[in-house]
C-alpha cells in the first residue's frame, strides 16, 4: 500500500517542534511524484547559528543524526522496531553513508513530531506500517548520512586548509590521505555544526557499499536475549500503580450497575475507576488488579449490538455483493466477453474477522498531572498517540510528553490509539502514574479486527482454458476510510483493493468492484497486510481453480499468464524449482503455489501439506522466492518471509473471531490459537538479486496452503480458516 499520492496532512497547529523540546531544525518535505512514486528533499537548517546556541559542540545536521563532542553518534529512528528489523536496517542506511560501523551508533526512539518524522508513503502520518519503512527510508536516510559525512569532511578540510576533495571519511574519522592526518568525528562535531549544508550530496555507488546488502547482526538482539529490552509494558515510573480493566463485552455497550465492595476488599487493590463503558481496578500489582477485577459484579447494558452475530454480518456483506459497486479497475469488456467465453467458473470466497494477538498485550502507562500528562507506550503512531492523550486529558498537545518503546508485536494493532485514550481516561481518576495492562482476554475481545470480507468472483475461459474475463466483486470494511479519510475516494481505497487490482497476470478483460460495508458493532483495523491478506488468498485460490478447470498444471498455467511480468515469473520459477514442483508425493500430500506482487515486492511460495484421514492439516514445508528489489539486509528479509509464512499458516489453520450476542466468543490462546513450534514447517527462502527500488517485506502472507490442500485432497476451501471436517477422508 503506497499512499504517496495521498495529500500530505497539514501539520496541526500545535504540532510544533518546541512542543517536544526538540532542537531539530531541519525537516523532510515529501512531495508526490508522478504516478504515486516517492520524491523527497531534505530541507536545510534555517541557520547554523541556531544549533550552536542550543547545543554547543554538538553536530546535528538533520533530525536523524546527532554527533556529540565526545564522539557519541546517536541516530533517531523515524520508524519503530516491532520485530521487523527497522532498528537495524535504518541504521544500516545511515551508517553506510555516514561511514561509521553499526557498533559505533546508539539509537533513540523518535519523539512525536510529524514534521520531522512523518512517513512520506503514509501521507505524512508518523506511522510505521504497510511495509513502507524501507521503501520510505531508502533515499532520505542515505541522504541524511551523506549530508553529515560531507559536512564533517568539509570541517576537516577547513581545519587542515586543504581541498575537501582530498579528504575521505571512513570508520568515524576523516582522513587526509596525502599527509596521513586524521580527525575523529567527535573532534569535528563543533566545526561541522557551523559548516554550510551542501545543497546536494553524492550518494555512494552500490558497488562501494560496505553495509547495505550484508547480513549485519540485528542491533536489538542482545537486549532481547537477556531480559533488558524495555517494551511499553515494562515502563515503571516511580510510584506506578497497575490497573487492569473490563470494557463492555458488547461494542457500544455501557456499565449499567456495578458492585465493587468485594473488589475493594482485595489486598493490594487501591481504587476502582468506573467509566461510562468500562471499569478499571487500580492496584499495587497486576495480581491484585486481576483478583479485584474478578471480584467485581458488573451488569452491562449491551446497547444496540447486543444481539449481533457473525452470520448476520456475513449475510449483510453477501447481500451487498448482489448489487454492483464502485469500480476499482475496469479493463476491456468483461460482460461481453463472459457471454462468448467457452467456459465460465464462479466461486464465493469468505475470510473471517481476525485478532492481532500481539504477544505483548495492550498496555499504556499514564501520569496525568494538573496541567500536564506523560505517557509511556509502544506505538506505531506515536504522534497520534500524543494527540489522543491530549484530547482525552483535555490538555494542549505541548503539555503531553510521550515516550515510545520497543513493541512486542505490532501487526497493525499499534497503528491504533484506542488503548492510549482509554489509559488516559483511567489515569485522570488516579493520583500518580498508572500502568493500564489489558488481560489477554480483554486484548482478544476488544481488538480492532481484520475485516470480514465476502467475495464473488468469476472468470470466462477460452477454448484453451485460459482466462479471457475476470470479474471480482467484494464487500467489507474500509480501514483507510476511518484511518486516513483523504485516502478514501469515490467509494474506494488503495488498501482494501490492494492485491485485487493490477494483477500480475495478463488478463484482457477485468472488472473489480468493491463495496464498503462497515460491520455494525465491531471495529476493524489494519492486520499484517490487510488488503492483500484477503485479496491474494482469493485471487490466487481462484487462479488455481481456473488451472484445475483447464486441467493444467498450477505453475505452468500461471507462467503462461506472466509474460508481461518477468519478475513475477522469475520468482515463480525459482520457488517451483527449489520446491521440487512436479515430483511425486504420497497420498494426501500436496503442493500448492501462490504468487503475489504487493508492497513493491514479488513473492512466490510453494507449500507442501499433508492432510490426515481425519482432516487435520499439517504444513510440512514452505519454499519461498522473493524479489524485493535492493536488499538492505538479507537476513532480515529472510526472517520476514519466515514470520509472514507462520502468520499466514496460523490464520489459515486457526484464525477466526466470531460474535454471538454481540460478544467476541474467543478469549485467550486456547480459543484463539497460535501455531506452535511442533506445527511449524521447514521454511526455505531464496532471494533474487535485484537493483530495483526496495519493496516492503513485512507482510507477504501465504495463500499457497489452501491450494496445497486442494492438491492433496481435491477439496477446494473457499472459506478461511480450514475446516478439518470438510477434509475428512470418506470411510
Amino acid at each position, binding site marked *: 500500500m503506497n499512499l504517496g499520492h495521498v495529500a500530505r496532512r497539514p501539520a496541526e497547529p500545535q504540532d510544533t517542534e518546541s512542543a517536544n523540546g526538540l532542537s531539530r531544525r531541519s525537516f523532510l518535505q515529501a512531495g508526490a511524484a508522478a504516478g504515486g512514486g516517492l520524491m523527497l528533499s531534505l530541507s536545510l537548517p534555517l541557520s547554523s547559528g541556531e544549533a550552536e546556541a542550543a547545543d554547543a559542540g554538538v553536530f546535528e545536521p538533520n533530525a536523524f543524526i546527532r554527533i556529540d563532542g565526545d564522539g557519541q553518534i546517536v541516530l533517531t529512528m523515524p520508524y519503530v522496531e*516491532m*520485530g*521487523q*528489523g527497522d532498528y537495524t536496517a535504518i541504521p544500516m542506511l545511515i551508517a553506510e553513508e555516514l561511514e561509521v560501523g553499526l557498533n559505533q551508533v546508539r539509537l533513540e526512539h523518535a519523539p512525536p513530531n510529524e514534521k520531522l518524522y512523518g512517513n512520506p508513503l503514509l501521507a505524512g502520518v508518523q506511522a510505521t506500517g504497510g511495509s513502507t519503512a524501507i521503501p520510505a527510508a531508502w533515499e532520505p536516510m542515505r541522504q541524511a548520512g551523506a549530508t553529515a559525512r560531507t559536512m564533517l569532511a568539509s570541517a576537516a578540510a577547513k581545519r587542515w586548509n586543504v581541498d575537501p576533495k582530498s579528504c575521505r571519511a571512513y570508520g568515524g574519522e576523516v582522513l587526509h590521505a596525502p599527509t596521513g592526518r586524521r580527525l575523529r568525528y567527535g573532534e569535528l562535531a563543533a566545526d561541522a555544526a557551523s559548516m554550510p549544508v551542501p545543497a546536494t550530496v553524492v550518494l555512494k555507488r552500490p558497488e562501494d557499499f560496505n553495509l547495505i546488502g550484508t*547480513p549485519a*547482526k*540485528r542491533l*536489538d*538482539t*542482545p*537486549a*532481547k*536475549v*537477556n*531480559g*533488558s*529490552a*524495555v*517494551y511499553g*509494558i515494562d515502563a*515503571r515510573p516511580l510510584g506506578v500503580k*497497575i490497573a487492569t480493566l473490563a470494557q463492555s463485552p458488547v461494542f457500544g455497550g455501557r456499565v449499567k450497575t456495578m458492585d465493587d465492595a468485594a473488589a475493594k476488599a*482485595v*489486598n*493490594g487493590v487501591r481504587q476502582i475507576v468506573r467509566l461510562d463503558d468500562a471499569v478499571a481496578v487500580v492496584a*499495587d*500489582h*497486576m*495480581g*491484585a488488579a*486481576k483478583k479485584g477485577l474478578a471480584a467485581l459484579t458488573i451488569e452491562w447494558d449491551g446497547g444496540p449490538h447486543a444481539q449481533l452475530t457473525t452470520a448476520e454480518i456475513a449475510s449483510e456483506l453477501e447481500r451487498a455483493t448482489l448489487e454492483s459497486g464502485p469500480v476499482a479497475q475496469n479493463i476491456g469488456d468483461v460482460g461481453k466477453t463472459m457471454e462468448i467465453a467457452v467456459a465460465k467458473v464462479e466461486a464465493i470466497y469468505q475470510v473471517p474477522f481476525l485478532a492481532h494477538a*500481539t*504477544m*505483548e*498485550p495492550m498496555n499504556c502507562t499514564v501520569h496525568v498531572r494538573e496541567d500536564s500528562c506523560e505517557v509511556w507506550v509502544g506505538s506505531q503512531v506515536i504522534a497520534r498517540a500524543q494527540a489522543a492523550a491530549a484530547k482525552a486529558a483535555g490538555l494542549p498537545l505541548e503539555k503531553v510528553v510521550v515516550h515510545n518503546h*520497543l*513493541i*512486542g*508485536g505490532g501487526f497493525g494493532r499499534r497503528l491504533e490509539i484506542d488503548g492510549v485514550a482509554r489509559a488516559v481516561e483511567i489515569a485522570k481518576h488516579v493520583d500518580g502514574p498508572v500502568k493500564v*495492562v489489558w*488481560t*489477554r482476554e480483554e486484548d482478544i475481545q476488544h481488538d480492532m479486527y481484520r475485516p470480514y470480507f465476502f467475495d464473488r468472483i468469476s472468470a470466462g475461459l477460452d477454448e484453451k482454458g485460459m482466462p479471457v474475463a475476470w470479474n471480482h466483486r467484494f464487500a467489507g470494511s474500509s480501514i483507510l476510510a476511518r484511518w486516513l479519510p483523504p485516502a478514501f475516494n469515490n467509494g474506494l481505497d488503495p488498501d482494501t483493493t490492494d492485491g485485487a487490482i493490477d494483477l500480475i497476470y495478463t488478463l484482457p478483460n477485468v472488472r473489480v468492484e468493491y463495496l464498503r460495508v462497515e460491520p455494525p458493532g465491531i471495529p476493524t483495523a489494519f492486520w499484517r497486510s490487510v488488503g492483500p491478506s484477503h485479496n491474494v488468498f482469493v485471487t490466487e485460490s481462484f487462479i488455481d481453480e481456473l488451472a484445475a478447470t483447464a486441467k493444467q498444471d498450477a505453475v505452468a498455467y500461471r507462467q503462461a499468464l506472466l509474460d508481461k511480468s518477468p519478475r513475477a515469473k522469475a520468482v515463480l520459477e525459482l520457488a517451483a524449482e527449489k520446491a521440487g514442483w512436479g515430483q511425486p508425493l504420497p497420498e494426501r500430500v500436496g503442493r500448492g503455489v501462490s504468487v503475489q506482487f504487493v508492497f513493491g515486492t514479488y513473492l512466490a511460495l510453494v507449500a507442501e501439506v499433508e492432510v490426515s484421514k481425519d482432516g487435520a492439516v499439517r504444513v510440512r514445508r514452505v519454499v519461498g522466492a522473493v524479489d524485493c528489489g535492493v536488499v538492505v539486509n538479507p*537476513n532480515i528479509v529472510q*526472517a520476514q518471509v*519466515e*514470520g509472514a*509464512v*507462520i*502468520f499466514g499458516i*496460523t490464520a489459515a489453520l486457526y484464525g477466526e473471531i466470531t460474535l454471538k450476542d454481540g460478544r467476541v466468543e474467543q478469549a*485467550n*490462546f*486456547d480459543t484463539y490459537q*497460535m*501455531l*506452535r*513450534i*511442533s506445527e*511449524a514447517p*521447514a521454511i526455505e527462502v531464496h532471494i533474487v538479486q535485484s537493483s530495483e527500488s526496495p519493496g516492503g517485506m513485512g507482510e507477504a502472507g501465504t495463500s499457497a496452503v489452501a491450494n496445497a490442500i486442494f492438491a492433496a485432497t481435491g477439496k477446494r476451501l473457499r472459506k478461511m480458516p480450514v475446516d478439518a471436517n470438510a477434509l475428512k477422508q470418506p470411510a
Partner: protein
Amino acid sequence: MAFTIKVNGQKHSVDVDGDTPLLWVLRDVLGMTGTKFGCGMALCGACTVHIDGVATRSCVTPVDSIGESQITTIEAIGATKAGAKIQKAWLDNEVVQCGYCQSGQIMSASALLASNPHPTDSDIDDAMFGNTCRCGTYVRIREAIKRAAQSTGQEG
C-alpha cells in the same frame, strides 16, 4: 502476608497475598521486567522461569507454593552453562524479531538443554510446545537449540 523468595540467588521479602502469581511479584513488586506477561493461563510460555531448574510458568505459580526453591529468571540465566549457550546461539542464529516471547523461549530452551544436552527434534517439540511466538521465529529457535547443543560452551 510476607513471603521470602530466592530469585537469582538473592533473597527478597514481599508482602502480597499467597495466591499472587509469581509473575506479578517479579514484574510489579521486584521490578524485574525481563519475565513477560502473555496470557495469564500458562498457554503461551512468555512468563517462563526456572524453579529449581525446572521450566515453570510463573503466571500460574502462586508465590506461596515456592518455599525455599531457587527461582532463576532471564536476567540471570546467562550465568548458567546451558543458559549462556542458548543465549549465544540465539545471537548467532539471529532468532529474535519483536523479542517479547524470547525471554520465555530462552528459559524453556535452557531448561531443556540443561536436562538433555542433545535433544532430538521431538524433544525440542515437547519442551518448546508451550512457548508461542507470534512473529514466527520457530524455525530459528529449533536451529539455535541444535547449535547450542553442538557447541562446547568454550568459545565464549
